[in-house]
C-alpha cells in the first residue's frame, strides 16, 4: 500500500465505473470519536494505544508483585496460599515481560520510528493495527484465566514436565500458551512491519549510519523478534498439543527428554532479554546526547555493539541451564559466550559515560532516569558477569541473587529507560510537558524503592534463599539482627516505596492532562527528526519530507559550528524551521484510510483459542469470523473512494485526503 503518493497509472474500467466496491463494507473514514481509535491505522494512535495497554498491564503486574512481597514480608506468609502464589509469580513475570515491556517498546517504536526516519506511516498500516489488537486481546485472554479456574502456575519458564496436564490440571497453562501465541503473532507482524519500514521508508539522505540510535536499537530488536518468536511459537505448540490433544513431546515415560523444552524456551528466552532491554538502550542513547548537548560518543560503536548483542545473544541460552546437567563441555562453552556478551554491553556503558564527558549537562527528569539507568544497569550487568562463571552460578541460580540480578537489568534497565522516554517524549506525544518537579520525586522514589526492593535480594540469594517459594521459614533465616527475615522485610517495604514512586507518575500524568499549558515546539533543544514537526505531530507527520544531511539533522539545522572555537552557534529556531516547512508543504499527501478488519480479525483469534480449550464448536465459529474478516480485509479497497468523505477540505492545511 503506497503511503507516499506517486503518480502512477491506475487501472480503471473502460466504460462504466461501478459505484460500489467489492468490499462487503466501505472503508471507514471517521477521524473523530471512538471510531477514530478503534478503526485507526495511524501509527501514532496505535503507538499510544500500545502504550496505554502496556501501562495497564504494568499496573496489573505491579499489583501481583506487591502481593508477592506482602506474602514474603514475614515468615510463613498467609496472604496467599501455595497455589495462588505460584499463579502470582508466573503471571507477574508473564505480564511484565510479554504484556508490559514488549508492548511498551512496540508502542514507542510505532510512534517514533516513522517520525525519526521522516516517514508518514509504517509500511503496512492495517497489519500494524492487527498487531495491536492481537496483543490487547492476547493479554486479556491470558488474564481471563484468573476467573476461569486459575491462572498458569508453572512459572513463566513453564518447564516441562511440570507444565503437563497431570501436574497442572487447571486450564491456566492452556490460557497462557494460547494467549502468548496470540501476542506472538502481534510481535511477529510488528517486527516485519517495522523492519520493512526502516529499510524502505527512510527520508532521502538518511543512510543507515545516519539513522537515529533509537531506531537502530529498535531495528535490532525487531530482527531478534523475527527469529526468536518462531522458536517460542514452536515450543508453545508442542505444549498446547501435549495439554489439549494428548501429544507426548515432554512425557518421559514415552522416551522424551524434558530438557528439549528448556532448550527451546531459552533459545527464545535469552534473545528475549535483549528484546526487553535494547529499546531502553535506544532511549537512553537519545536522551543523553540531547541533555549533554553533544552527539552520542562513538555512534558506530554503539550501533555495532547493539548488533553484536543481537548476534551473540543467540549463543548464550544454555547459561540458564548450568545446573540442568548439560555436561562440562557445553557448560564451558556457554560460560565463555556469556562472558563474551558482556563486552558489547560494557561498550555501551562506556559510550554513555563518555557522551556526558565534556558536555553541558542539563538534569531534566528524563536525564535523571537515563543516568539512573547507567548506574543501576551496571550493577545488574556485573552481577550478570558473576553468573557467567558457571560453577559460581550453580550456587546462585534459582536463588534471590538471580532475582536481584534480572530486576537490576530489567527494572534498572528497561523500566528506567521507558520512564526516561516518557518524560522526554511526553510533549511530543501530547503537546504538554510532564511536571518536572513531580518528576524529580517520581525519580527518587522509584530509584530508592527499587534499590530497597532488589538490593537486599543480592544478600538473600547469596545467603541461600531460593526463588519461587511461597513461604520461607525462620529456621533457615540465620541469626543476628540482619538476618534473612530482616532483608525480606526491607525488600517488601522497598516494593511499596517503589509503588508510590510509580503512583506519582500516574498522578503526574493526570495533573499534566488537566493543565492547559502547551509545551514549546522544541522544549529540550533536541537533535533528531521527530522534533521537526508540530506537538503532537499532524496525522501525516511532516508537511514536507525532510532531506537528511547529518546524523543529528534537526540539531544541525538549528546550530552551526564556530570555526574558531569549535563551539556551536544557533542559526535558526525550531519555530523558524517549522514555519519554513509549512510554507513548502506537499500539496498531495495520501494517507491510508482506517479499516474495520484488523480489530474483527484480531477478535476472532481468541474466540478460536477459547474454543480449543472449552469446546471445538466455539473454535469453528471463531474460524468462520476469522475467514470472514480475512475476506473483508482482502477485498477492501486500499483507500476509501472520494464520495465517502463528508467534507474534503476539513482536514489539515494542505492535506488532500482523497489522492489522485
Amino acid at each position, binding site marked *: 500500500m503506497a503511503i507516499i503518493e506517486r503518480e502512477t497509472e491506475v487501472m480503471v474500467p473502460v466504460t462504466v465505473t461501478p459505484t460500489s466496491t467489492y468490499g462487503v463494507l466501505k472503508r471507514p473514514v471517521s477521524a473523530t470519536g471512538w471510531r477514530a481509535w478503534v478503526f485507526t491505522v495511524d501509527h501514532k494512535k496505535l503507538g499510544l494505544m500500545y502504550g496505554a495497554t502496556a501501562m495497564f498491564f504494568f499496573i496489573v503486574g505491579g499489583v501481583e508483585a506487591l502481593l508477592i512481597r506482602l506474602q514474603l514480608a514475614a515468615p510463613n506468609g498467609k496472604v496467599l496460599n*501455595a497455589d495462588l502464589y*505460584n499463579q502470582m509469580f508466573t503471571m507477574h513475570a508473564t505480564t511484565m515481560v510479554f504484556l508490559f515491556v514488549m508492548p511498551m517498546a512496540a508502542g514507542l517504536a510505532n510512534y517514533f520510528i516513522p517520525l525519526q526516519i521522516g516517514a508518514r506511516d509504517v509500511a503496512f498500516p492495517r497489519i500494524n493495527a492487527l498487531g495491536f489488537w492481537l496483543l490487547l486481546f492476547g493479554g486479556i485472554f491470558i488474564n481471563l484465566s484468573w476467573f476461569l479456574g486459575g491462572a498458569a502456575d*508453572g*512459572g513463566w519458564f513453564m518447564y516441562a*514436565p511440570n507444565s503437563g*496436564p497431570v*501436574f*497442572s*490440571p487447571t486450564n491456566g497453562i492452556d490460557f497462557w500458551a494460547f494467549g502468548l501465541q496470540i501476542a506472538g503473532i502481534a510481535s511477529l507482524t510488528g517486527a516485519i512491519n517495522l523492519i520493512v519500514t526502516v529499510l524502505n521508508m527512510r527520508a532521502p539522505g538518511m543512510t543507515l549510519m545516519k539513522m537515529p540510535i533509537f531506531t537502530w536499537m529498535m531495528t535490532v530488536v525487531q530482527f531478534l523478534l523475527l527469529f526468536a518468536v518462531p522458536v517460542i511459537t514452536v515450543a508453545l505448540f508442542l505444549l498446547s498439543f501435549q495439554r489439549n490433544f494428548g501429544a507426548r513431546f515432554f512425557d*518421559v515415560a514415552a*522416551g522424551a*527428554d524434558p*530438557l528439549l523444552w528448556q532448550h527451546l524456551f531459552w533459545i527464545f528466552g535469552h534473545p528475549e532479554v535483549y528484546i526487553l532491554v535494547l529499546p531502553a538502550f535506544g532511549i537512553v542513547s537519545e536522551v543523553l546526547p540531547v541533555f549533554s*548537548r553533544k552527539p552520542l560518543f*562513538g*555512534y558506530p*560503536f554503539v550501533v555495532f555493539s547493539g548488533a553484536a548483542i543481537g548476534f551473540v545473544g543467540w549463543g548464550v541460552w544454555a547459561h540458564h541451564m548450568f545446573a540442568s546437567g548439560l555436561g*562440562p563441555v557445553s557448560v*564451558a562453552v556457554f*560460560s565463555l559466550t556469556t*562472558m563474551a556478551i558482556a563486552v558489547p554491553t560494557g*561498550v555501551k556503558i*562506556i559510550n554513555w*559515560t563518555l557522551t556526558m564527558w565534556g558536555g*553541558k549537562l542539563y*538534569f531534566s527528569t528524563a536525564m535523571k532516569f537515563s*543516568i539512573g539507568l*547507567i*548506574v*543501576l544497569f551496571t*550493577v545488574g550487568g556485573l552481577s550478570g*558477569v558473576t553468573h557467567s*562463571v*558457571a*560453577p559460581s552460578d*550453580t*550456587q546462585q*541460580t534459582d536463588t534471590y541473587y538471580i532475582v536481584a540480578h534480572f530486576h537490576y537489568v530489567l527494572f534498572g534497565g528497561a523500566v528506567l529507560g521507558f520512564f526516561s522516554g516518557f518524560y522526554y517524549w511526553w510533549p511530543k506525544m501530547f503537546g504538554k510537558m510532564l511536571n518536572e518537579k513531580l518528576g524529580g520525586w517520581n525519580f*527518587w522514589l522509584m530509584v*530508592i524503592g527499587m*534499590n530497597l526492593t532488589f*538490593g537486599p535480594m*543480592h*544478600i538473600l540469594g*547469596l545467603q541461600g*534463599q531460593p526463588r*519461587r*517459594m511461597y*513461604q520461607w521459614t525462620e529456621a*533457615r533465616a*540465620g*541469626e*543476628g539482627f*540482619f*538476618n534473612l527475615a530482616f532483608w525480606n522485610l*526491607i525488600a517488601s517495604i522497598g516494593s511499596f516505596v517503589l509503588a508510590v514512586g510509580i503512583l506519582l507518575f500516574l498522578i503526574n500524568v493526570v495533573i499534566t492532562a488537566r493543565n492547559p499549558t502547551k509545551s514549546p515546539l522544541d522544549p529540550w533543544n533536541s537533535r533528531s527528526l521527530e522534533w521537526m514537526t508540530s506537538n503532537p505531530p499532524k496525522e501525516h507527520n511532516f508537511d514536507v519530507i525532510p532531506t537528511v544531511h547529518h546524523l*543529528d539533522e534537526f540539531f544541525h539545522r538549528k546550530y552551526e*559550528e564556530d570555526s574558531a572555537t*569549535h563551539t*556551536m552557534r544557533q542559526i535558526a529556531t525550531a519555530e523558524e524551521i517549522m514555519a519554513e516547512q509549512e510554507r513548502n508543504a506537499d500539496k498531495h499527501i495520501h494517507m491510508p484510510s482506517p479499516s474495520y478488519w484488523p480489530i474483527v480479525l484480531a477478535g476472532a483469534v481468541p474466540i478460536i483459542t477459547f474454543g480449543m480449550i472449552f469446546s471445538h464448536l466455539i473454535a469453528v465459529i471463531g474460524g468462520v469470523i476469522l475467514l470472514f474478516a480475512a475476506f473483508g480485509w482482502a477485498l477492501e479497497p486500499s483507500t476509501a473512494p472520494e464520495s465517502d468523505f463528508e467534507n474534503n477540505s476539513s482536514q489539515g492545511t494542505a492535506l488532500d485526503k482523497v489522492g489522485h
Partner: protein
Amino acid sequence: MNHSQRHSNLKTRVASVLLVTSKKYQKIFGVAMATMFAAGCAQNAPQDTWQPKGPNAKIIDDLQQPVFAVAGIIGLIVAVAIIYVVFKYKDRGQAIPEQTHGKPALEITLTIIPALILAVVAVFTFGAIFKLAKTDDTEMIINVTGQQWWWEYDYPAQNEFGINQPIISSGQLVMPVGTKVLLRETSRDVIHSYWIPALNGKRDAVPGRVQTLRLEADAPGLFAGQCTEFCGLSHANMRMEAIALSKADFAKWVANQQAAYVAPAKDSLAQQGEAVFLNQCVRCHQVNGLLRADGTPAIAAPDENVWSGAAPNLTHLMSRNTFAGATFDLLSKQCRDEVWNAPSDEIGAKYLAGVTEDCLNQKDLRAWLRNAPAMKPMYANPTQLTATGGKYRGMPYLALSEDDISKLVAYLLTLK
C-alpha cells in the same frame, strides 16, 4: 575462624561495591548503605553460599570471591566516573561544546580491557568446571531420587562401607566425612534440583536422566538444603538435610539401617498401631520385614496409589530427624537444637541417638496423621485427581480417629 573472617571481609567489600555503584544517591542512601554494610553480619544462615564446608564448595568459593571483587572494582570505577562527570560537566552556562563523534582508539582500548579481564576469568572458570565434573575418583555412591515433594536416598551395596544390602531412606542424606561421595540423581515426575550450599552447587534431578553431583564434607556436621527447581505446589516445602558423620559413626548408622525388623511387644499400644499401619499406611509405605496377620510379608504398592509411584520407606523412621520431605521435624524444638548446635565432634553421637519418645515432635506428627494435606499443600484431594486417574500426588487425608493416631504414633516410635 580464620576462614570465615576472610569470608565476611570479602562480603563487606562486595556489599560496599554494590552500594558504591549507587553512590550518586549517597546522601539519601546513607542509612541504607550503613545497613547494607552490615550485611556481613548476617550469621549462620544455614544455606549461606559463602561458607563452604567441603572441597567442592571450596573450589566454587575460591573462584567466585575474586570474581565478585573484580566485578565490584569495575562497578566502583563506573560509579566514580559518573559522579565525576555529573559534577564536573553540569550546565553552568558554558557554550554548547564541539560536536565530536568519538575517538576510535579510546573506544577500542576500552573494549579490549574488559575482554582481557574476562579471558583471565574464563581460564579459571574452565578449570573449576572440569574439576567439579569428575566422577572417576568416587569413593561412595548414593542414589538420589526426587519426587513431589520429597527426596529418596538409596545406597547400593558397597561392602567397604559395610553396606551389604541396599539401604533406603528419605528426608536426610547421611554420609561419611572425608569421603568423595557421588550422588546419582534422577526424578520420578518433574524436574527437581538438589542443593546443599555448604557442600556444592546445585544439580537438577531430571526425569529420564541420571546426573551426578560430587559431595564431600570436611568435618561432621548438619547441612541444610532446599529443592531449587520449581516443582509445583509444595516446592517451598521440599527441603533436604545432609548429615556428615565420622567414619566410625557412619558405620554405626549403616549397621542400624540394616538391622532386622523388631515387631512391637505383644498387647502393647504399638502392636495395635501396627495393625492400623497394616490396614492403612502399608498401601504406600514400605516397612521392611513387616508381616501381615497371615505371615506373608507386607509389600507396599505405592505405584497403584501415588502418581509418581513411590512413597517414603519408613523402616527406620525414628533414625531420621525429619519427616514429610524434611518439611517438619520429628524432634521437638529443644532436642533438635541440641543436635544442630552440638560441636562437630559430638554431632555423631547426638544424631545416632535417633528420636526417643521424650524428644518426639508429637504435635506435628499427629497433625500430619490427622490431615496431611492441611499441613503441606499437595494434590491429595480426590476432586483434583482426574488428570492422574485418581492417583495422589502427596499423602491423602485418611480420616483416622484420634485413637488410631495414638496407636500409630506408638507404633512409629518402635521403628528405630
